[in-house]
């Protein structure tokens, strides 16, 4: 019996139509626009000027000082044409560096060969530095800078490194493809992270609907023979790849409310992140490429693809290259259908964490008119955090902040299971997300006030 998380979850059709499409390398566009905000935290600060010549893999922006941030590298060689605001997929202005592509010359010291480097370095600090300098961020959705997550605070100990190969979002197949085509590199990446974390065991969790990936990863693990790495087959259930759910499925533990995974002894990284760690550490290649899926329910399978893209490629250019936005697409989503973002602006560009262009038909994606809550409890049954969405929705409508906090709205992971399940088609998550934002604001303000009070008390003691 394959493992899974205990509370809630839903079973949308997995729609992995593009599972057998091998990864193809996209050609280069004429221009790329590289966003400064492609990681969780503060946007990076450009360190090149208009007119500069850059090479692929060269640092073009440095982490914002004294903040959670990450390096950004050029994905192409060419000339910096402009630096300024440009709209991202949600239509918000972000600082972008525009580069005119000239040739394809890579910065020195980057190993572009496909030779597998299996010797694991032993200098922990050095490796962490390389991961940081390579601009590696988590590629499972949150884009949290990897070197921070791999360096747990003093006093906490990693007991298990979990590689997330669940790919529980319907339609997406890029993780499936890299696990099939680049399994050994992923396993070396895992071994590197094991070393960094002090030699804890590593479990690679893969949902059972990806048998080829499971076979390939098992083969790579046994052939490479690193100690303490194993593959765990997980049940097909959304959100299996949610960090908290994966920890529960693999380790049988729960992460306390508001706490970090490391408090339960877990560090979770996506398989794509492991690949990026491999490239950054073993090949000196920073994170400027990733894999994305072109898919949808209104796209014939022969037009679906898994592409190796470079960051900064305009989505409209990729869509055009792939054969254009299909007839009948009512919505284009970046990411999966459960948590991805609807793209309002196809002129936006790929970022490190891009995972798909998902074309959904009106029939699949159009929201039906909502009706009365019939109190069926299906939303609560589906919630993987054990919350009661019908109640949160009601409390939010009435602006009852204290009750929202007491009923743990701040624990919501925005997975969408509740709204997906509601037979009355109530847009539960829309309301809950807003309420969560407000309650988190209140909690932050309270924490800040407590801190200020403590400092004031300290100061008056002196």
């Amino acid at each position, binding site marked *: 019996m394959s493992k899974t998380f205990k509370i809630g979850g839903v079973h949308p059709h997995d729609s992995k139509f593009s599972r057998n499409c091998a990864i193809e390398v996209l050609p280069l566009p004429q221009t790329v626009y590289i966003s400064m905000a492609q990681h969780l935290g503060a946007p990076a600060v450009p360190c090149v000027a208009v007119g500069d010549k850059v090479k692929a893999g060269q640092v073009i922006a440095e982490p914002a000082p004294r903040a959670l941030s990450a390096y950004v590298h050029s994905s192409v060689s060419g000339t910096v044409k402009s630096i300024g605001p440009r709209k991202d997929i949600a239509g918000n202005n972000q600082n972008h560096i525009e580069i005119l592509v000239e040739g394809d010359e890579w910065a020195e010291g980057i190993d572009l060969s496909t030779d597998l480097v299996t010797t694991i370095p032993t200098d922990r600090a050095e490796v962490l530095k390389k991961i940081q300098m390579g601009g590696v961020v988590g590629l499972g959705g949150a884009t949290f800078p990897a070197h921070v997550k791999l360096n747990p605070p003093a006093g906490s100990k990693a007991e298990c490194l979990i590689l997330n190969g669940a790919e529980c979002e319907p339609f997406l197949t890029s993780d499936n493809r890299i696990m099939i085509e680049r399994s050994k590199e992923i396993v070396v990446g895992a071994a590197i992270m094991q070393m960094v974390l002090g030699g804890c065991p590593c479990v690679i969790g893969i949902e059972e609907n990806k048998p080829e990936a499971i076979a390939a990863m098992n083969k790579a693990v046994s052939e490479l023979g690193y100690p303490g790495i194993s593959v765990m087959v997980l049940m097909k259930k959304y959100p299996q790849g949610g960090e908290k759910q994966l920890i529960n499925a693999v380790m049988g533990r729960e992460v306390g409310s508001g706490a970090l995974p490391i408090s339960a002894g877990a560090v979770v990284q996506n398989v794509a992140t492991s690949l990026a760690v491999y490239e950054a550490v073993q090949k000196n290649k920073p994170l400027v490429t990733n894999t994305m899926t072109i898919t949808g329910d209104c796209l014939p399978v022969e037009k679906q693809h898994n592409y190796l893209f470079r960051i900064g490629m305009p989505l409209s250019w990729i869509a055009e290259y792939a054969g254009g936005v299909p007839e009948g697409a009512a919505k284009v989503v970046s990411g999966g259908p459960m948590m991805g973002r609807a793209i309002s602006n196809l002129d936006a560009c790929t970022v490190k964490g891009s995972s798909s262009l998902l074309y959904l038909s009106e029939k699949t994606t159009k929201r*039906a008119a909502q009706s009365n809550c019939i109190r069926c409890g299906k939303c609560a049954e589906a919630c993987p955090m054990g919350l009661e969405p019908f109640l949160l929705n009601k409390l939010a409508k009435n602006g009852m902040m204290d009750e929202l906090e007491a009923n743990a709205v701040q624990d919501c992971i925005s997975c969408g299971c509740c709204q997906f399940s509601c037979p009355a088609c109530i847009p539960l998550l829309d309301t809950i997300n807003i309420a969560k934002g407000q309650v988190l604001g209140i909690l932050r303000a309270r924490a800040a006030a407590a801190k200020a009070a403590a400092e004031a008390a300290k100061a008056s003691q002196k």
Partner: protein
Amino acid sequence: MNKLLVSPSPHVHTSVSTQSLMRDVVIAMLPAALVSVLFYGWSEILILAVSVISCVGLEYLISKFLLKRPATICDLSAVVTGVLLALNVPPTCPWWVIVIGAIFAIGVAKMTFGGLGQNMFNPAIAGRVFLLVSFPTYMTDWTVPAGFIHATDAVSGATLLGAYAEGGVEAIKGINYLQTLFFNIGGSAGEISACALLVGFVYLLVRKVIRPHITLSIWGTVAVLALIFWAINPAKYPDPIFALLTGGVLLGSIFMATDYVTSPMSAKGGIIFGVGIGLLTVLIRYFGSYPEGVSFAILIMNATVPLINKYCHQKKYGRK
């Protein structure tokens, strides 16, 4: 290119809707309805028709003319109430009594509270209890009309529970449980065949329309309590199987206690709710003045649902 939709996630939705759930409930009641038609014939067809038509019609008229809002009859919840009400009255019940039941069920118990989802009491139960109190003679007339199947082999006459109430354990000696399981003539329409009801229950579980907690905890409680009474005094009290198979325990526990709107949200709450119903059912039967306790038990427990919901929550991830 057309304008793209941009709404927040999730971008897909389950195919289960309020309407599909209610349709499943109607389908689950079909075996019981079919059996009742077979045994009670045309009069049962009439009852079903009158009940469904008055429930749906009333809901339509009330929302359209009194509440002045779009009618919600497409969600099929009024059909569910209609079929349930029909299964809850004797086959000889005059049509106008059923219409009054429908008026109370839909008009009072459902629409005055704001319609589906807002009502405190299960409409069909409220209708049945209202009729039981207002028209006791019609509601306990267990004459068996001519059916399409001749029921000589079936247990017939007064309801088994009625017989027991009058004649004690002696009166129900020698009944054949196997037979009761398939056809137990002389109850309200929905109580004829335990088997048909169980088929409906399994269907609801398989289709994931309901969870089993409420129904099973009612059965468990009724069985355990009946067993205790029976063990103490078998000359006075019937055995647990009798207690379970008669008097609408099955009908009530499968189709009425599990009504979403009027039962608790959490599994834990559902168990408390079910145990409460089982307890009250047995107490009313053995010590109350009505032989039949399920309807009253469900109605009383419906009233406790807000309280149960307030104190029973499911386990949250990462919290005690």
